[in-house]
């Protein structure tokens, strides 16, 4: 079983020849393109840490298909312990990269499709699950990073996929052939797409009978003919072309390096098709995938919080204000917010369950609560980080001006802090806080894995509101409660009649 190192992963990308466009030009080499490199480094960390004895306990797993050690990012969760370790892996990688390391989307795609294909086969007698297991084995053997392509471009959202003026607003089957299908459509903001070995597609929403051709899941190599990537812009993205410090996180970038994926009459052989028209399983696939993915955010974003909390404390020390009570209070607030999200992510894993396929899934209610908290709390702890760091995070001069022979030194010295904190280091840290708290990471926390409204729909659906109403009726005395009756030793009605009588008689003692 191959388990690539970070460097081997980067080299493995050279064997691929995907068609990628950015700034109106075709990118010749993914690996050598400076705009892509930070994202590639972040993904490479998911490979590299699996080889470090200090981290392998959570970075690796045992394949349930062949019993061999694999990178956990290719594993289908076989226990509650696997779900918990997956969360620990997310936090660890957030800590080590300070950004999105991209590989969790494919992991969740593998698990979501695994669970759903089993259920489709149970109902329709199809053989999707067997096909998928064969594919999974390939992923594990080659230690591939597949991107998870769920979100479609979606066009006019008041219309169903089959009603769209431009059918390519949703990925769909154009033609069914004896040996496969021809697909067309656009998937939007796909994380890690340009530096993945494979693409796993999934439907983006519940489909109806009319949307049959849009109920679709398959996997293809990233450089399949007819697939084009258009790399997305991010806040301050081209700073990485101008120097090192201004980029803030020059090693790993900001968020995941998203891209549009255009499928233009792409052929997919049947052995790589895992759903083709079973519209009644689209809800399940979306919900299972989203459940896994939303749970992750309580891991990875908390890892980022660890970095920004550390950075904020360091800046407070460098500025000589770390002992000020308001700073201590703010840092404590950040920690409490982050650990609240961490608690949610652990809870949804510990409360997970075994699906009919044998794979384990997180608790969907708690996973959605986790992500809903992330859509708010990341903004809050980043707001506090900005507060502590001060206005310099948005007004610092450029790196090039710091190098000016006439006044560069003067600027640098004027930013000196406490003894032992070199001014250039202070500037680096401020740029990192700017990168993490001002950039694309915030809306990513809002919309990644689904927007808040999507989480609220799932939470409402699983709230058990009827049971809660019964609980309230018990307490309010609308319902009679057997345990209360046992405590008082009689029927509730009799008891309250008794109480009323004693109140009238002004006898306080009831028993």
């Amino acid at each position, binding site marked *: 079983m191959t388990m690539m190192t970070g460097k081997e992963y980067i080299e493995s990308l050279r064997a691929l020849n995907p068609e990628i466009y950015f700034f109106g030009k075709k990118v010749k080499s993914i690996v050598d393109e400076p705009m892509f490199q930070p994202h590639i480094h972040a993904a490479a960390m998911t490979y590299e840490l699996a080889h470090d004895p200090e981290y392998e306990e959570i970075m690796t797993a045992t394949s349930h298909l062949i019993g061999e050690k694999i990178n956990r990012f290719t594993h289908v969760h076989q226990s509650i312990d696997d779900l918990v370790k997956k969360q620990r892996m997310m936090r660890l990688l957030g800590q080590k990269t300070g950004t999105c390391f991209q590989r969790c989307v494919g992991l969740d795609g593998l698990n979501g499709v695994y669970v759903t294909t089993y*259920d489709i086969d149970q109902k329709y007698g199809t053989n999707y699950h067997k096909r998928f297991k064969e594919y999974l084995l390939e992923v594990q053997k080659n230690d591939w990073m597949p991107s998870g392509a769920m979100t479609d471009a979606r066009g006019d959202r008041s219309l169903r996929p089959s009603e769209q003026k431009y059918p390519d607003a949703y990925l769909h089957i154009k033609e069914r052939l004896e040996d496969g299908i021809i697909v067309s459509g656009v998937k939007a903001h796909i994380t890690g797409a340009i530096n993945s070995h494979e693409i796993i597609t999934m439907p983006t929403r519940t489909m109806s009978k009319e949307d049959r051709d849009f109920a679709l899941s398959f996997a293809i190599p990233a450089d399949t003919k007819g697939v084009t990537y258009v790399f997305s812009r991010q806040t301050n993205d081209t700073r990485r072309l101008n120097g090192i410090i201004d980029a803030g996180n020059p090693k790993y970038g900001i968020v995941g390096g998203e891209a549009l994926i255009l499928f233009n009459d792409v052929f997919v052989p049947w052995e790589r098709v895992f759903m083709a028209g079973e519209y009644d399983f689209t809800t399940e696939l979306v919900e299972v995938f989203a459940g896994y993915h939303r749970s992750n955010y309580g891991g990875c974003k908390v890892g980022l919080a660890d970095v920004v909390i550390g950075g904020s404390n360091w800046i407070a020390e460098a500025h000589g204000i770390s002992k000020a009570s308001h700073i201590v209070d703010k840092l404590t607030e950040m920690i409490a917010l982050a650990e609240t999200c961490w608690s949610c992510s652990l809870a949804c894993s510990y*409360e*997970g*369950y*075994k699906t*009919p396929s044998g794979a384990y899934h997180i*608790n969907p209610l708690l996973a959605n609560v986790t992500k809903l908290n992330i859509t708010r709390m990341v903004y809050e702890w980043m707001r506090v980080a900005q507060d502590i760091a001060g206005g310099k995070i948005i007004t610092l001069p450029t790196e090039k001006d710091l190098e000016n022979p006439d006044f560069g030194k003067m600027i640098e010295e004027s930013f000196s802090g406490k003894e032992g904190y070199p001014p250039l280091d202070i500037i680096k840290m401020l740029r990192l806080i700017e990168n993490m708290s001002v950039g694309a990471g915030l809306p990513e926390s809002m919309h990644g894995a689904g927007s808040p409204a999507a989480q609220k729909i799932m939470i409402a659906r699983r709230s058990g509101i009827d049971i809660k109403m*019964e609980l309230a009726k018990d307490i309010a005395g609308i319902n009679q409660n057997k345990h209360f009756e046992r405590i008082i030793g009689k029927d509730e009605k009799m008891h309250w009649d008794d109480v009323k009588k004693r109140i009238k008689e002004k006898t306080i003692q009831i028993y």
Partner: protein
Amino acid sequence: MLSIGLRYCGGCNPQIDRSRVVRDLKKALIKMDLRVDFITDKERTVDIILLINGCIHACLEEEYLSSGSNLQCISVKGEMVDSQYVEEDHILETLIKKIMGFYNRSGPYSS
């Protein structure tokens, strides 16, 4: 008489009304003229075990699986019975099918 060892989870955040599931089951079995004794005492010998878990996490399964028991077990876990998804309203018929299957394979039971 068929004896069913009835085990309830703690019911901290149930997705189903656990008491109703058992109540409806008892009523349905009486209607079918099937004599079944539901036993909650864990020390007593029973023919099969019925786990009533309020949610799909199924706390009771962990305990049951680690006990090493060879007894047949039916596990209700939220809107699932064993490894099958069922709506809450269909839990009853699924349970009856499973109990009848066991009864027909192993019966008759004397009182």
